[in-house]
């Protein structure tokens, strides 16, 4: 990089660090307020957009059904859902504010060129609550980029920020390569730190080596670290994240949606000792899928196996890799490098504990086990029909919740409790304000879009005042 260091006079009103949903919403919103905006995206043009490229929908409250939503979803219901998944670990005022603001996002996002469609075939019964992007997250992202470009937002790719100059809670400039770029306000929308395995290891130890990262490899937490080291107040439990169980054969990064497995409820899940460790039928899958990443992370070698029999093979959406199959349980165990007799014993004990009932995977049915620990409380049917199948699963981390504290203006709070003069944050980098733990499908995009729009607007006002 040979660019000379410019004078301290800022050429841009607002700098946005990041290139995903939150960053682009912030850039568009700041530009619309009249500010000049520079977006610094660490990735190249193909990989731009961080985790947004892997998303497919956004959860917004709405009063009535629309062309793409099957019914109303009130603010109160949204808040109840959030309380349930986070077990109350949320900033209630901020969460309620976000949910209220989410109502206007459906229209605002559409105005930016994004198009909606009804929920996808075979998806997790989200048709009423979640708005799906026509063509998926990358299509949504492409629309935001086009809108931002048309508005005159300057976008730089492969522009990784390595330093941020902050004086007493006041943002001055960022450093990209050898270049120092000043601006009047900052929006940090650069994601969490889930792709930084070394950082994950601080909390998870060597186990983190066995985590797969479902999204971008660029979320290394550099910007988050710089902010926290410059006296921005921290929020969230560093071990908390959106983690699901994904196919263990998935690539280390960017496997995205297609490595997920929706078949836990149809069978049993065992660890390397061929033992079950959690109630596979606790609740309907969309309400439970996001706990299995942490459950598997707690097992030996961070691996587990979803076992089911031939009767279940076509009951769930096809996934990327074929299941591993064998005509008998011991043969399946051998393929999975499990102790055959131990697995046979686990399956036999499970089969014997299954009480007769009427199987129905759409409701909490009456097929449960009796006298088994842990129990399977619904959809428990003996594994008897050969061939037998298994999917190996590992924790798949979507994003981490450790972040920077913000207020309702998306303004960063400093360690001393004061609001920063000109620093704002949106998206995963501040998701921990709303998500103390757990996850509800599509809420990451809500956090990104709602706070992105606010952060951009407030940054512009701060810069132009």
């Amino acid at each position, binding site marked *: 990089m040979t660019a000379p260091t410019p004078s301290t006079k800022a050429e841009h009103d607002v700098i946005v660090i990041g290139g995903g949903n939150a960053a682009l919403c912030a850039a568009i919103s700041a530009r619309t307020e009249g500010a000049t905006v520079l977006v610094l995206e660490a990735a190249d043009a193909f990989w731009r957009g961080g985790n947004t*490229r892997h998303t497919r929908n956004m959860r917004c409250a709405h009063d009535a059904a629309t062309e793409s939503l099957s019914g109303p979803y009130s603010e109160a219901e949204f808040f109840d859902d959030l309380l349930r998944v986070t077990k109350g670990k949320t900033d209630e005022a901020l969460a309620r504010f976000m949910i209220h603001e989410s109502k206007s996002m459906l229209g605002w996002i559409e105005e930016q060129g994004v198009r909606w469609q009804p929920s996808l075939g075979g998806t997790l019964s989200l048709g009423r609550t979640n708005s799906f992007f026509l063509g998926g997250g990358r299509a949504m992202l492409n629309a935001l980029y086009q809108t931002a470009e048309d508005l005159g937002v300057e976008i730089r790719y492969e522009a990784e920020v390595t330093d941020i100059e902050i004086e007493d809670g006041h943002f001055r400039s960022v450093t990209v390569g050898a270049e120092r770029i000043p601006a009047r306000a900052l929006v940090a929308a650069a994601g969490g730190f889930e792709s930084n395995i070394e950082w994950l290891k601080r909390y998870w130890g060597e186990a983190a080596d*066995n985590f797969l990262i479902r999204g971008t490899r660029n979320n290394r937490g550099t910007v988050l670290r710089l902010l926290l080291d410059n006296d921005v107040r921290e929020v969230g439990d560093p071990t908390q994240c959106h983690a699901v169980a994904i196919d263990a054969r998935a690539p280390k990064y960017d496997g995205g949606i*297609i490595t997920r497995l929706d078949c836990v409820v149809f069978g049993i899940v065992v660890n390397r000792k061929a033992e079950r460790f959690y109630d596979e039928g606790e609740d309907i899958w969309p309400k439970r899928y996001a706990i299995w990443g942490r459950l598997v992370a707690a097992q030996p070698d961070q691996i587990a196996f979803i076992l089911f029999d031939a009767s279940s093979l076509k009951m769930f959406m096809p996934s990327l*890799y074929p299941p591993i199959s064998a005509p008998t349980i011991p043969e399946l165990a051998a*393929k999975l490098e499990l102790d055959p007799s131990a697995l046979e014993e686990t399956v036999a004990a499970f089969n014997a504990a299954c009480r007769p009932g009427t199987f129905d995977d759409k409701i909490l049915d009456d097929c449960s086990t009796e006298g088994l620990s842990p129990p399977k409380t619904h959809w428990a049917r003996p594994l008897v029909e050969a061939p037998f199948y298994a999917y190996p699963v590992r924790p798949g981390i979507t994003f981490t919740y450790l972040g920077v504290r913000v207020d309702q203006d998306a303004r960063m709070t400093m360690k001393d409790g004061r609001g920063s003069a000109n620093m704002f944050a949106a998206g995963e980098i501040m998701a921990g304000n709303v998500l103390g733990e757990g996850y509800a499908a599509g809420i990451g995009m809500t956090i990104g879009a709602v706070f992105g729009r606010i952060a951009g607007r407030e940054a512009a006002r701060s810069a132009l005042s």
Partner: protein
Amino acid sequence: MNELAFLRDTVGPGPAGTAGSNAQHATPALAEADRLMTVCNSCRYCEGLCAVFPAMEMRRSFSDGDLNYLANLCHNCGACYYDCQFSPPHEFSVHVPATLAQVRTESYAQYVWPRAFAGVFARNGLFIAIALAVAVAGFIAGFVAWTDTGVLLGTHTGPGAFYKLMPHNTMVLIFGAAALFAVLAIGMGIRAFWRDIGEPDGALRDTGSVWQAMKDAGRLRHLGGSGAGCMNEGERASNRRRAYHHLTFYGFMLCFASTSTATLYHYLLGMQAPYPWYDLPVVLGTVGGIGLVIGPIGLLHEKWRRDPDLSEGTPFGMDVAFLLMLLLTSITGLALLVLRATPAMGLLLALHLGVVFALFVTMPYGKFVHGIYRLLALVRAARELKH
């Protein structure tokens, strides 16, 4: 990460361990299409873009017939390439339009009748060029051989002027035979396609589905991206390709209507061509001809500007050959209209008839068939959505 051998041993042979639903396929392109449909079927983000993905979702495994059906259903709008988070350089390397374009071209060769012509799709530009040269040379030679030089280079006006150069019955015989041959060959192709994709013959009597397919094709619904248009030069959608295709298709249909009306004039009303400029056959032919000039030029222009990453797999020579044939047909036809009262008429007529003859006889052996198989695929898609 501690390496567990079975994790490596149980993946597929494709990029990043991906695999298709079947091990056996007739060609590598079909095997790749199976792999992609397996990847896409576990994602489904593109479901709302066109007819291909909803049809894919009705299946869990993909035979060659299924893939040929899906490939012919694809309009090559390119949206799923730019919208895909797994398109190259992602290691899953998902490029649906390129792969389906390849499968589609291979399927044309598979269904061709007679089978001996299967090779012409691989070098289609050359084949069409030779057919054109032979046809034009044949007509000019015929005119020179059978007409007096004075007549050939003379000025003719009034009813029957054309037939001084070539008797009407000879013209009808030659073009009737060419048309019948084209219809027969295309019909055999239709039969082969319909059987390959596993549809019962009676399915084509499902008038509701046929009507739906005709509406979808007539509007180019799946080139429309639900209003935004299709991708060509990059990720920004536009309706230009669709508009040029409409000009080409409806221009062609108007020219066809012009010829049909002229035939009725000749046999029913006893009126001989050429007709005055304001008469129906000439008006239809002129308007259609203008569409058939602007449309193909526009489509050629779009083709040249197409993102190289996107045009991968699309048979450039075959597409260009067909567009140039249509363009030559309209240009020679319009030139004949303008210069029909001059001494140039004789040779222009030979040229125009040569081009039209070449267009007719090569119809079953070039890009023209895309419309036929796509319409049939749309019929099946409409039927599948109903059931």
